């Protein structure tokens, strides 16, 4: 069963192509890392898969449903997104933010019931932020906020979770904590996860499949050991690295070699 599939999906922002003829799919239950330098199209690809940007050419399917004419409500019941930057304008409490994840299941006349409340509580417990529920979102640390946004995404009860550089602004302990959480969600709930990753070593440690983008095209797709080679890193990132084997997990481990 495929979680999503893109067929020759092309997108341009008006000043040149952001993505060219991307054909990519993921099975349900896969954990896919997107890597590539800044501007290579990782975020744009995530937006295309989430359906908020329409492909200029080609098609994107979620679970067999074409996104071209799909309604947001239907799409957001299948796919949830944890964006890179997140700002709340008013003093919302954590629980209220997580409840926003239930929006696709609400209507004008159906307010949040005790069932919705239970789903919200469950999502917060999964992420481990139960004790933050009454705190103001904007007063939390970056790591805590990231978990709240993840809980909101989980409250959507998605089958596909997209994350845009989820560890970028976090300290190393929070990075590991968040990725462990994603791994657990993937294993225990069968959630398909696609994340744009910035740190190649962390990507190699946590993602069984890495898709490499360069200038809007997929240039490599496979297990970390096949993708993360010195020649590939030199070609895609223009950086010189030595690749070693991680001492405990045996996945590739990169060390930057200054030119």
């Amino acid at each position: 069963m495929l979680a999503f599939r893109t067929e020759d999906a092309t997108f341009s922002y008006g000043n040149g192509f952001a993505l060219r003829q991307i054909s990519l799919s993921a099975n349900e239950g896969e954990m896919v890392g997107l890597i590539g330098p800044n501007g290579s199209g990782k975020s744009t690809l995530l937006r295309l898969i989430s359906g908020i940007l329409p492909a200029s050419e080609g098609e994107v399917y979620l679970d067999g449903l074409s996104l071209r004419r799909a309604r947001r409500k239907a799409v957001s019941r299948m796919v949830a997104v944890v964006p890179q930057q997140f700002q709340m304008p008013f003093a919302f409490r954590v629980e209220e933010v997580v409840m926003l994840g239930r929006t696709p299941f609400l209507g004008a006349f159906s307010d949040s019931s005790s069932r919705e409340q239970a789903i919200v509580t469950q999502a917060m417990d999964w992420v481990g932020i139960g004790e933050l529920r009454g705190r103001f979102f904007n007063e939390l640390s970056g790591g805590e906020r990231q978990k709240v946004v993840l809980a909101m995404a989980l409250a959507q009860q998605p089958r596909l979770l997209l994350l845009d550089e989820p560890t970028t602004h976090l300290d190393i302990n929070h990075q590991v904590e968040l990725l462990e959480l994603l791994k657990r969600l993937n294993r225990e709930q069968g959630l398909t996860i696609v994340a744009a990753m910035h740190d190649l070593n962390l990507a190699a440690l946590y993602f069984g499949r890495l898709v490499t983008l360069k200038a809007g095209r997929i240039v490599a797709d496979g297990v970390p050991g096949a993708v993360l080679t010195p020649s590939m890193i030199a070609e895609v990132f223009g950086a010189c690295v030595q690749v070693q084997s991680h001492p405990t997990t045996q996945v590739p481990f990169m060390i930057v070699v200054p030119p």
Partner: protein
Amino acid sequence: MNQVRAVFRSNRHVAVLTALLGLLAVSMFVATILGKASISLPEMARMFLNRLAVFDFEPTWRAVDETILFQIRLPRVVGGAVVGGALATAGVLFQGLFRNPMADPYIIGTSAGAALGATIAMMLPVGVAFLGFGLVPILAFVGALLTVLLVYRLARVGGKTPVVSMLLSGFVVSGMLTALMFLLITLSDDLHPRIQSVYVFLMGGVSVSGWEQLAVVAPLVLAGVMAARLLAFRLNAFALGEEGAAYVGIEVERDKLAILALGSALTAAAVSISGLVGFVGLVVPHAVRLVLGPEHRLLVPASAAVGAAFVVVADLLARTIVSSGELPVGIITALIGPPLFIYLLRRGGKEYAF
């Protein structure tokens, strides 16, 4: 762990709203019994009972007192509540949509459009009346709506209307329309004798007399407030930003248009019977948010009730504090609104915590 906190429990909502509607009822009662013409309370009670055809008391009061109570004072009290409720609700809608603390019902040019419309109406020699409305309220209403339409159209690029473009084009269009209004005032000799009425309109003088206009505007505003309550969960989602709202299933462009149209219609309805009453739409939603939090399911109806009570009390002051004549209610709202707001802000409420 499982102690479900009361954030979404509707008991709290019901309790708070009952209290606020009580506050509104009390303020309307006080505003009805107080006024320059002193009518005694027992007499008022008997007048009401006569009206309800429950009793038939022998009138011990002057006929003019009855006219003052039923045709002047009561419509004004109801009118004040309608204006306050409409502006506060519109304020909630615009602040929620724009995620901006500076947004008020006039932010995208309704005030300038209404003022220009009213000025044109005052220049015209004809005295058209429609559903009990004179030309001034009609053109103010039309001017406000046309302006929003123009601003929306100007901000629309490639099938999208980013809120930032809307704020900017609103600002620019407002500036031009205001300049046009002053140009008309300066050039038109016909207007000079009526310059006072232009100022009263700009300062927000509630001009309701009789029930004819209210019979149109009050149901419109009531329906508008209820519609805003139905949009509440969408307004909550807009707090995530336009992209974030789309991620949780909001059809952003469609819902943005709905919020904008509703807010503009409420504002135009208020302006048509009161001119430009300032600060209600800006301050009331903030004050309510400081005390009750930003969740729109409670914020919308609570702001409507508080806004209504606020303008009723402000209008009571406007027509009683000076011994001769009366003040435009907009002056009172602009004088007592900000200090109250500053008090709430400094008391340590959290509206924006960054």
